[in-house]
Structure formats: C-alpha cells, structure tokens
C-alpha cells in the first residue's frame, strides 16, 4: 500500500543542505500496522514530513508510492485527499478556528477533492459527539480554537479525534503516545485499533514499547541514520526496550 524505495531527502538550502533521509526503503501492505522506532534525531519526523509534503525538504532520490500513485508529485492537500493522514508529533495551534469548524472544513475539502458529497451538518455533529465521547473530549472542548490552550495530552487526543473523523486510508502517527497519561494511552490505542481495516495501513512512530502492547504491530522497523537498518516482529520492540539501541544495533552493524 505504502511503498518507499531508496528514498533520500535533504533539509536546508544549497550549501547548507543536509541529508536526513538516506536511501530509505519500506513497504507497508494494506491491512497492516508497522511501527518505527529509532534514536532521537534519526529522521523519523522528517520522514513523516517528506511523505506528507511539508516545505523545506528536498527529495534527492528514490520514490514514495501510495497505492501505486506517486506521492511526491502531489501538493499536501492532494495527498490528504488521497487518504494520507499525519498525527503530528507537535500539533499546531490554529487560533480563531474552532475544532468543529476546522474538521468539517477539512472533511468537506477532502470530499470535494474526491468528487464526493459534503457531509450533512446533523451527521457531522452526531459523529463528532460520538467520537468526542470515546476520546474524552467534551462538546465544550470541540468548540474551542484548535489546539489553542489544550494540554499536551489533549492535543494528542485531538489528533486521534481528527484521524477518526477523517477516516484516512493511510495514517502516520508520530509519537502520538508521548505525553499521554496511562488511561489516555489506552483510549488512543483503542481508537487506532478501531481503525484497523483490511483496506487501511498505518505507520506508528514511537519510542516506547507500551503503546505497542496495545496496538500490536505487524512489523517493527528501526530507523537510524536516515534508513531502516533492522526489521522484525513485535519481539524486536521488546528487545530494544531491554537492550537499548546500542545493544541491538551493535549486533546489526
């Protein structure tokens, strides 16, 4: 479903350009959830930005296909309309735009890009109430400007709320578990599991085994130095937790 082949990308301009993603290959078939782990600064967030089309990065080689379509050719909003979703490591505050307005605008923009009908107001409100309840987001919170003044954990829950509202075909979760309390971690994991679907793929970036206890990834990849240097089953995450990157990677090198 998502197929990255020898992907390389730099950040910075001209002489300052620095290679962060360096020949990265990865495939996530439909229906699977893969985890990416890796030391700080390895390039995990950079990978998620390159895939979603954030400015400031230049792809210098390789390819990134979503269901056979070249992601790198598309504007960020086109990628989103194709069903690519990123739960941001650091969600951005959007002053003056209430959560509900924001999500509805996004949903309808995606639908209209896909030639689908807009969601009706009652359907939208019903759905957002249901999901809000699941994620412990009160109707009052959903009226506030997006992310403004929300706590770290609340912002992460809002990311998952948006993901569940938008029902993407492929979701990247960049450290969505960081900053969540124990109950919220469970709620978020339940949300992710609810979206598991034979037609949907997910890439979960995390530092901690705990989220993976709840989510149970099909594969775990280790990203270091801008590429995937080790891939294994869920047991790899357990080993990393015990032995650390030095222990596990020392053997790989």
């Amino acid at each position, binding site marked *: 479903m998502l197929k990255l082949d020898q992907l390389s990308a730099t950040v910075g301009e001209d002489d300052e350009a620095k290679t962060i993603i360096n020949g990265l290959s990865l495939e996530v078939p439909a229906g699977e959830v893969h985890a990416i782990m890796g030391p700080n600064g390895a390039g995990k967030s950079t990978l998620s930005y390159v895939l*979603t*089309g*954030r*400015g400031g990065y230049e792809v210098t080689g390789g390819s990134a296909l979503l269901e056979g379509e070249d992601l790198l050719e598309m*504007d*960020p*909003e086109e*990628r*989103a*309309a194709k069903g690519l*979703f*990123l739960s*941001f490591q650091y*969600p*951005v*505050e*959007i*002053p*003056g*735009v209430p959560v509900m307005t*924001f*999500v509805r*605008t*996004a*949903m309808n*923009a*995606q639908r209209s*890009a896909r030639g689908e009908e807009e969601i009706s107001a009652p359907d939208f409100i019903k759905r957002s109430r249901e999901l809000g309840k699941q994620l412990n987001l009160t109707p009052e919170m959903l009226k506030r*400007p997006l992310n403004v003044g929300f706590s770290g954990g609340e912002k992460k829950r809002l990311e998952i709320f*948006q993901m569940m509202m*938008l029902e993407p075909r492929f979701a990247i979760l960049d450290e969505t578990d960081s900053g969540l309390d124990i109950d919220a971690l469970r709620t978020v994991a339940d949300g992710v599991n609810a979206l598991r679907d034979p037609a949907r793929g997910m890439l979960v970036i995390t530092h901690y085994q705990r989220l993976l206890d709840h989510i149970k990834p099909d594969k775990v990849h280790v990203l270091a130095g801008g590429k995937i240097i080790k891939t294994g089953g869920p047991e790899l995450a357990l080993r990393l937790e015990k032995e650390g990157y030095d222990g596990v990677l020392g053997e790989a090198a």
Partner: protein
Amino acid sequence: MALSVSDLKDKFRNPGAAELELIARYAMLPESGQRERAFEAFASTGLPHRRMEAWKWTDFKANLKSVEASSRGAQCAPLPAADQAVIEFSAGSVSLPTSLPNGVKLHERKDAQALGDAEEVPLGAMTAALAGRVGGLDTLIIEVTETATTPLHIVAKGDRDETNFTRVSVIVRPGAHLDLVESHVGGAGFSSFLIEIGMQDGGSFNRTVLQHGSADEAQAITAVVNLGDKSEYTQTALAFGAKVARLETRLTHQESGSHAELNGAYLCAKGFHADFTSHVRHGAPSSVTRQVTKGAVLDGGTGVFQGKFHVPRTIGQHTDADMQHQALLLEDGAEVFAKPELEIYADDVECAHGNTSGALDPNQLFYMRQRGIPEAQARALLTEAFIAEALETAHESVRDALTDAARSFLMESVR
C-alpha cells in the same frame, strides 16, 4: 464681507483641478459665515497630501486629479437593515425613514453648522463647507433621548456620481443609547462623510461601519467624538478601501470615567488603499480606551494605521489605554504603514501599545493543508480568524454580515 471665488483661489496654494471644482461648488451654495470658516480651514491645506505629516501615506491630492464621476454604482450591498430605519444619502438627495427607533428624533438643518477644530480635520472641514444640497438639507441632526431598542442605519451610496458629501451630527442625551450602522458603499468619485457625536453623561453609543469603495474612488469618513461623564462609545469598522480611503476618528474624553472602544479591520486588494487614523485625547481623569486594529493586504494593496493617544499632564490621571495594531502581508508587494504613538504627560496612567506585521505562519498553513484544506482556503480561513477579534464589537444585528463580507472577499481574493 464674503470672500469672492478669486480670493478663495488665493487661499489655496496651487489649487489643482479638483480643488478648483470644489471652489466652484462652494460658490454655488448659499453664503454663510459658518460655511466660510469651514471652507477657509480646508483652504489652508487644500486636499491633504503627502507633505503633511498626518497624511504622508494617504495622499488625496495625488489621487484626486479632478472630480470625476465614478465608473461604478455601489460596490456592495449595504449592511442588512431588515425593517429597521434607514437614512440614505446620495449625491443629490436624502431619503429619511417614515418611522424611527424609539427615542430618536431627526432635525434637518438647511444652513451650514459650525465645526470645532476644523483645521485638525481638513476633509471634515471640506465636508462641513460642502455638505449642503442646494435648496435642501445641510446637516442632519440625530437626537437620542432614551434607549433606542432597534438600530438606525445610514447608507451613503452613489450611482456613478461625482461627489457625495454628507454631514451628520448625533447628540446622545444623558443615559440614552443608540446603535448606528453605517454602510459607505461607494458609487461616487469623491465621497466624504462627516459625523460628529456628542455623548452626554452616561450615554452610550455603538457605531458599526462598513466601507467599500471602488478602485477609482476617493472616500473619507471622518468622526469627531466627544465623551461626557461615564459615557460609553464603541466603534467597529470594516474597510475594504478604495483608490484612496481614510477612516478617521478624533475622540476626546472630556469628563471623567468614560469608556471608548475603537476597533477596525482593513482588507485591501490590488489597487485598494485603506487608512485607519485615530486621535484619542484623554482630557479627563479615569477614562479607558481600548483599540484593536487588524489588517490583511494583498499584492498591490495598501493599509495604513496611525493611532495616537494623547494624555495631558494632571488632567489625564488614571488613564487606562491600550492600542494594538496587527497586520498580515498576504503576498509580496503588499504594503502596510503603521505609526502608533503614545504622547503621555501624566504620570499615573496605564498605557500600552503593540504593533506587528508579518506573514501567515507556514506551520499553520502546512497543518491545515495536511488535513486536506487547499492552500488558498487555508490562507483565507487563517486570515478571517486573524481579523475576527477586531469585529467582535460590531452590533449583533450586522456582525455576521460583516464577517460574511470579509469571508467572501478572502475566499475570492486570496490565492
């Protein structure tokens, strides 16, 4: 002894074609000492121009080579009045409503009225001299004696006219209240509106203004406001500009404990210029001023903010005043000029100001686009949210119409 036309020409330094036409109009109106004094005040500067400090960014003389009919009718619909009372001013006529809000009386003055401090407001002085319609109304006086429960609307609207000069004077009696909604929708090559507002003890007034001229028109809206003891004045304006447009407010806290809010937003497309200028004098103790001006400008558009708080020694004690101006430059080639000034001589006061201009935050834009919102729509939405704060004080009956006007402008113009 009245001045002859040639005396008048001498009073203008170097009158241009537009000023000569204004002199000819003056000569057609009935003679009056008040009119003459106002016109002389105007003559001392002529049409304001960039060599005058207060007009350095807004040059009417250069933009008004001659007085010509606008190539357009109204630029937009007036703010919605439903069945509320509407006074409409056009080039040659005034239409008055058959029924008025409770507590509101209109007095039609056919002769020119005096204007205090006319030298401070050159276009106000010009309007005071030229507002007279031959054989008809000169100044419309709106007297408010109780709490008017519905708003009064004023529409200034031309139809491919040369000029539309209008003068209104509002007197709010003690404890009375009025909501006034003004729509200045263009349609004249040169329109100028002068409103004087006298607030007596404990009166309150909410003024909401929409300004939208066309790119071949010059528009001035001048307000002179005097606040009595514990009176409250709220002003909210949305300006789209014109070839050159200025919304000027000179407000004086004359007695103690009065409260003023001056909020405004400008949205300028290519070829449009909008200027918000204000002068607030805290001429009495313990008065409060709150001012928020927001703007967003596209390539080839110009926004101007000039704000001044003047707090004289001893009489301005316990002033509490805050001035904020924030502008968004939406594209390269957008221009914003700002000059916030605090002139404070009293020592026991709280005065603050802030002034910023910049671009939209790329992180916010990317976040929105990642969610599927196309770039232009994301920019429009962020801009709308940015200016919204400045429109919150608009009268509730037209607040949505103002934000809708801003939204449709942004949806159409922002790329």
